[in-house]
């Protein structure tokens, strides 16, 4: 019953490595979709930019919490890292626009979920750009 003699299924040839990994990953993190744009997945890059920005804008409109580290609350470190995943928009909101959520706002919890989701989406885009540049994804 042993199938050691049967040839294994042919593995797909690795896709050619393209672009500079550091540039792709950094640009993917800095501006949502920019990494894909750099890797010539322009339509997908624009679509990702729109999706992540809509998520962030809805989160701000609902006055959700843009996390920052609170001493004595270690879970806020993870939440802050997730929020910072959105890249430049995080720093724009926090330090240029002085955005602060409104805990009394009716959409506070939803807004926080949208903001966190925007950051996490962009982190996944960074990993996707990394996979593309390494030739593991199309």
């Amino acid at each position, binding site marked *: 019953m042993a199938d050691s003699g049967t040839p294994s299924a042919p593995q797909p040839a690795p896709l050619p490595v393209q672009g500079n990994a550091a540039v792709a990953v950094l640009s993917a993190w800095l501006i949502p979709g920019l990494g894909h744009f750099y890797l010539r997945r322009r339509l997908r890059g624009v679509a*990702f930019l729109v999706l*992540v920005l*809509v998520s962030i804008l809805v989160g701000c409109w*609902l006055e959700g919490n843009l996390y920052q580290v609170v001493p004595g609350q270690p879970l806020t470190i993870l939440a802050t890292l997730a929020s910072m995943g959105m890249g430049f928009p995080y720093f724009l909101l926090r330090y240029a626009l002085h955005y602060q959520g409104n805990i009394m706002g009716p959409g506070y919890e*939803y807004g926080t979920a949208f903001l966190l989701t925007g950051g996490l989406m962009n982190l996944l885009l960074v990993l996707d750009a990394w996979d593309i540049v390494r030739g593991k994804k199309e």
Partner: protein
Amino acid sequence: MLSHFLLMVLYALLVSLFFSLLWRRGRREQIRLFLQIFIGMVGGGLLVAWLMYPFPSGPPAPIP
């Protein structure tokens, strides 16, 4: 506009669009995955809401 249902649908729409574009390349596969995630999220939310319906909501939680 601040309807729980509409916000849930908007959230499901964003997430399902995102993952269908991220994980699939063919148009048909993207649409298929989009529908699976979207219906799963909205339908799952409605199912949980239906299951929770008999339970009283109680007083609102205090604001920390």
